[in-house]
């Protein structure tokens, strides 16, 4: 087995091969580390690489097998971790100057579960600072480039994780999704990205952005791999009281059958799409129909207010959550003449422009005199959105839309904050309702840039969501290839 073959392999096949002894975890990890060595200077997906630890962990998996012990579902599978997940002993930064140098004294539950299943953490990936952004340009350190076209952004905020999977640095990665931060970069990088039902995956060890919206989920190059990873990371955790007991996701190999399933295309999300995205959505609808699904347009009227509600609720929660970065317990401290000035200088110099903008917006929305008109009203709109989704799901098994209104854009193309916020117009409503949704790569535009289709489902509707995503994957004629591997370029 060559290095080139290892980096193209699925997580399912790697784990099967390592378990059977067809090849070793060390061989798999070594191949991926070489891929990182060869191409990450161009992509810049990683904030921190974990090469030595990864090789050590791979050796431990191989030794376990040599002793005849049972290996887990992700034995020897390299995984890239968004750098807002705590990993004990490894610097965790949120791509922010304010947290640089922080060595967490604990590990996120998802990471513990991945490692218990035999997965090998190979590095911490770049993000928009504190997961606020849609292009990874807001990282305080450096932007990440889209492996499919290095002159374009990978999307965000989990841009480093999406890029690492697209670049074959790892078959799977972990991200977090508050308003689309897994699905939008998945769409722009041509990989699968899943935001699970709120409460299905523990958030313990995820550095909070907006706690009522944040959810952790997987990236992969196949629907099956993403389903397997969700199986491993889902389930109750007593350290996160919002992780629901008695709920987990069971991976089943999907047989694709979608005949008779009722699929609604969300009317409110058909406006404002670029021509190529519009065309891809039309093709997806045709494909689903040809496989026997019953596809119709359905209106989710309040979804059009999602962006507004989100940009009041998420900054409000962020302004509260990020109060903990005060220069006392971790990270940066810029000393002032007294404690108040120390707070102000630390936060003024430690946070980047977008994070400060959202803290300001959230503080304003929560301040006396505006609370009811802004934050309070947004929470009521959230109820409307959830109600309108419920009404749609009384007639449809799943809903679909484009994931992103456009393909990957160029650097500095959206310098106005509002135009960047618009990138998440199709993904935000699922977070507000707490529902699962995923992006599956479906088509390429005329330049070969990836276009993802979003599949949305009601709470705990992951099984039917994966089934429809598998059908779209099977119908897709497009496969995203890194720029350096593409012969046309």
């Amino acid at each position, binding site marked *: 087995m060559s290095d080139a073959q290892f980096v193209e392999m699925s997580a399912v096949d790697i784990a099967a091969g390592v378990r059977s002894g067809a090849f070793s975890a060390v061989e798999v990890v070594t191949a991926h580390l070489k891929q990182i060595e060869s191409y990450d200077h161009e992509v810049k997906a990683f904030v921190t690489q974990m090469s030595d630890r990864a090789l050590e962990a791979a050796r431990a998996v191989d030794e376990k097998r040599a002793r005849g012990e049972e290996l887990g579902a992700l034995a020897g599978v390299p995984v890239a971790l968004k750098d807002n997940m705590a990993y004990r002993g490894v610097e965790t930064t949120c791509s922010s100057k304010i947290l640089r*140098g*922080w060595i*967490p*004294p604990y590990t996120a539950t998802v990471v513990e579960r991945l490692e218990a299943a035999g997965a090998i953490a190979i590095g911490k990936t770049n993000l928009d600072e504190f997961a606020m952004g849609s292009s990874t340009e807001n990282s305080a350190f450096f932007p990440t480039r889209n492996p499919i076209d290095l002159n374009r952004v990978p999307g965000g905020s989990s841009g480093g994780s999406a890029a690492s999977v697209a670049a074959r640095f790892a078959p799977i990665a972990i991200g977090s999704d508050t308003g689309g931060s897994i699905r939008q970069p998945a769409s722009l990088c041509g990989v699968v990205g899943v935001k699970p039902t*709120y*409460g299905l995956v523990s958030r313990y060890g995820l550095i909070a952005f907006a706690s*009522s919206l944040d959810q952790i989920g997987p990236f992969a190059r196949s629907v099956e791999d993403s389903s397997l990873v969700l199986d491993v990371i889902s389930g109750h955790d*007593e350290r996160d*009281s*919002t992780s*629901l007991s008695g709920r987990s996701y069971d991976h089943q190999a999907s047989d694709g059958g979608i005949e008779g399933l009722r699929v609604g295309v969300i009317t409110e999300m058909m406006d404002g799409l670029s021509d190529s995205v519009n065309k891809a959505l039309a093709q997806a609808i045709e494909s689903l129909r040809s496989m026997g699904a019953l596809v119709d347009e359905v209106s989710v009227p309040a979804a059009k*207010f999602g962006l*507004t509600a989100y940009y*009041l609720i998420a900054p409000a929660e962020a302004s509260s959550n990020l109060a903990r970065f*005060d*220069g*006392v*317990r*971790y*990270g*940066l*401290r810029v000393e*002032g003449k*007294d*404690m*108040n*000035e*120390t*707070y*102000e*200088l630390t*936060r*003024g*110099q430690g946070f980047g*422009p977008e994070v*400060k*903008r959202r*803290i*300001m*917006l959230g*503080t*304003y929305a929560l*301040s006396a005199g*505006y609370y009811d*008109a*802004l934050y*309070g*009203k*947004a*929470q*009521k*709109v959230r*109820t*409307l959105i*959830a109600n309108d989704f419920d009404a749609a799901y009384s007639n449809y098994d799943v809903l679909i839309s484009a994931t992103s209104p456009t393909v990957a854009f160029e650097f500095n193309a959206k310098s106005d*904050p*509002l135009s960047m*916020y618009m990138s998440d117009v199709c993904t935000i409503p699922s977070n507000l309702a*707490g529902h699962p949704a995923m992006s599956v790569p479906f088509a390429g535009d005329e330049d070969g840039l990836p276009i993802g289709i979003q599949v949305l489902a009601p*709470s705990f509707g992951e099984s039917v969501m994966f089934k429809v995503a598998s059908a779209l994957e099977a119908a897709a004629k497009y496969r995203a290839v890194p720029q350096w591997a593409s012969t046309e370029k």
Partner: protein
Amino acid sequence: MSNDDISIETTRHIAYLARLALDESEVREYAGQLSAILEHAEDIASLDLDGVAPMRHTLSVVNIMRDDEVRPSLDREEVLASAPDAQASMFLVPKIVGEE
């Protein structure tokens, strides 16, 4: 909600509430951008939402209780190792109580 632009003065006050030291150019920039973002938020201002319950989170759970039992917590020295300043097993901060 109103169409009124957010003033420089209000922006300074919000920055104080959020404990963010901003320079003059940042204050001007944020005043303009917050006004633009909140103008976009006008689309929900006209909605009649009387009688609609606010949604604070999407779960049906209310309180989560666990047994009150002694268990290990984070290692104190490991936690303090990442603090900007620590002494005698405590976080060290600048003087809070003034002398005047």
